[in-house]
């Protein structure tokens, strides 16, 4: 690490001497006999999304490292091609992200990976589409990314408004069937459509939504909201919220002994720190996981999800969460498309191949809708529940690792 940084520092100092240096093309990889294919893009290594950015990056890197080091490159049209990732820090800032992306397009990068969060991906999508280079991303779910006719942008999960459907379906499948729901959602570009989608889906399935609460994007205290929830306690409290808000809600639910039959938080339990912070009170909380390391899938590169997980853990310290899985899926999809096309210099053909992809991978089935987002059924999330100290997949049926704890043990009796 220290070495790379000092090299960067020197580069930047050299750059400071003359602006021209900053504009130079990407340094070609040190001369090698095998040709190199570069994936470009930006990643939030700092700012609001820094942590997730690091996970996404680690997911990309793991596949590329494996292909290069274990397989000597990717087999494209009978030749081995070395893969390379050139991503730069967009600092969670959309203006900066577009400038940096344009630089890579100018430098001739032909294939792009996604940053994280819709406000960054959306402006990038417009640029990418104009440049006619494909982007496969696992970071932006906002509906607008997929409803404006951008043909070159593919997302690894269903658009926001459809992305929490599996949770509703999972609860519908329970016996006895839960009757009443309260839906809480955060007022941000992803959670709000996701939450509204949940409400619509619940009503569509004939389930009763007794209350809906809109929370600000960040909250310090939800005791007032929970007092209202206690006043008419639903069977299921569904929270479409960020990790931090979810943890706050779960803690205060436990503290105030709000006895729900089920607590769902769209994000949160997938993080070890969340489960540790709640201890025995985490038991039974459900969330959706786009990906889980226990998935039983086959994969064209690693062989299986389990082998990917093993390889990842051997080479990384960063905890494995679903972002690594979705990110790895992006590269796997690219690899398949490149092999279909049989050459590395035709981004248009690669786009067309991506549009018709339908494979099983470490991430699960990969098949996009004509709009470019993940197929809502085939690429829908799994639903997981905290059982013991682990997270177990409980839905869909064919992936289930454990029976759903239902109803969960009342918080007041723990």
């Amino acid at each position, binding site marked *: 690490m220290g070495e790379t940084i000092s090299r960067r520092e020197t580069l930047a100092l050299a750059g400071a001497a003359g602006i021209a240096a900053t504009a130079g093309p990407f340094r070609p990889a040190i001369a090698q006999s095998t040709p190199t294919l570069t994936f470009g893009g930006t990643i939030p290594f700092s700012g609001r999304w820094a942590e997730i950015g690091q996970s996404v990056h680690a997911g990309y890197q793991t596949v590329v490292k494996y292909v290069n080091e274990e397989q000597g490159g990717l087999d494209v049209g009978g030749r081995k091609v070395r893969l390379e990732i050139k991503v730069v820090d967009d600092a969670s800032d959309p203006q900066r992200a577009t400038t940096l992306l344009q*630089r890579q397009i100018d430098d001739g990068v032909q294939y792009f990976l996604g940053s994280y969060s819709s406000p960054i991906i*959306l402006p990038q999508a417009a640029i990418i589409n104009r440049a006619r280079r494909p982007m496969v991303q696992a970071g932006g779910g906002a509906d607008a990314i997929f409803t404006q006719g951008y043909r070159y942008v593919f997302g690894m999960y269903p658009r926001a408004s459809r992305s929490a459907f599996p949770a509703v379906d999972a609860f519908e499948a329970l016996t006895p069937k839960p009757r009443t729901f309260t839906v809480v959602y955060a007022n941000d570009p992803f959670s709000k459509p996701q939450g509204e989608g949940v409400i619509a889906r619940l009503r569509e399935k004939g389930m009763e939504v007794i209350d809906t609460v809109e929370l600000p994007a960040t909250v310090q205290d939800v005791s007032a909201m929970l007092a209202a929830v206690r006043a008419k306690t639903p069977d299921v409290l569904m929270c479409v919220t960020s990790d931090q808000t979810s943890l706050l809600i779960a803690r205060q639910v436990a503290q105030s002994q709000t006895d729900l039959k089920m607590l769902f938080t769209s994000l949160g339990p997938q993080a070890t720190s969340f489960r540790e912070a709640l201890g025995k009170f985490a038991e039974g909380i459900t969330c959706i996981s786009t990906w889980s390391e226990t998935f039983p899938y086959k994969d064209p590169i690693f062989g299986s999800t389990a082998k990917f997980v093993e390889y990842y853990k051997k080479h990384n310290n960063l905890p494995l969460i679903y972002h690594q899985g979705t990110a790895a899926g992006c590269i796997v999809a690219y690899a398949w498309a490149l092999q279909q096309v049989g050459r590395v210099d035709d981004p248009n053909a690669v786009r067309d191949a991506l549009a018709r992809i339908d494979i099983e991978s470490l991430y699960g089935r990969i098949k996009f809708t004509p709009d470019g987002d993940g197929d809502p059924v085939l690429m829908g999330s799994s639903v997981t529940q905290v059982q013991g100290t682990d997270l177990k997949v409980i839905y869909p049926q064919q992936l289930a690792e454990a029976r759903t704890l239902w109803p969960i043990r009342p918080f007041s009796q723990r």
Partner: protein
Amino acid sequence: MSARALMSVALGAAAVGGLAWLGTVLSPFHLRVGLSIFLSAGMAIGWYILGGFARYYSFGHTVFVGVGAFAAALTLQTWRFDGWVLQVATGVGAAMAASAVLAAVIALPILRLRGHYFTIAMLAVALVCAEAASAFPVFRGSIGLTLPDVAPPSVRPERFFYWMSLGAVTLAVAVAALIARARLGYGLFAIREDEDAAQMLGVPTTRCKVLAFLASGTITGLMGALYALNLGYITTDSVFRGALSLDMIVNSLVGGMGSLFGPLVGAVVMTLLTKVMLGDFLEYHLAITGLIVVAIVFLAPDGLLGLAEKAWRRVRGGNAGGGADPR
């Protein structure tokens, strides 16, 4: 017009012409860098009309960027015109009108405050507007607004916005320079030196401050509209951002608070440094930006231009008369 003023107008026109010509030859990436520089320079100039001339430091100028951006987005969604001229005119016009109205409404109460209190009050205004844009569903700030692609099909969008923002910066500089040379400017400089004394000497301090605030807000709002049109998608977080307010201040400070060139130089240097070079520094760039700010305060309190001037004087053998225009 004095010879010197004529000279600076001619030089300015030549510089703008040169930059406009550059727009035809630069690569898309360089166009985007140029565009980023123009946008931050324009915002910094907007801020400087109040912060530099009268030394009323606003810590919430992003409110005008946000209001401008939202006004442009909302009007363009409501009225769909054909043709880029009409679209840009509507968007930019709505942005400038909305920021001017906001400035007019808050000017009198807020400009009664001085020093830190004005600074915090502007921060509060920005926070209130940002939260309102998110909370009230009519503004749709939390889920985001898409803006139409206004660039005509025959011009590359980054080139189009390069020229548009160059035009806006030119306008901003022209307005600021005119203010500096008008009675208004002298009033503001008097306020900067000692507001109470200025008032006692008959300077209409309130009128001066209100006018400067209006000009400052309107120009910043104009830049906000271009910022939004260029991105094509905005949320509360992307346009009502504390970081934007801060950039305006830091750019002015880095360049130097001595003259209008300060914010321009600052915007060029800081944009190249933070947006372009530090892209390679991954997780350390926040800390580096912070250290630059600290270093400027300690090592170059008068900004880069101040440093350059000092160096120049030393070369010339301590000729104190060579100082630049105090503006």
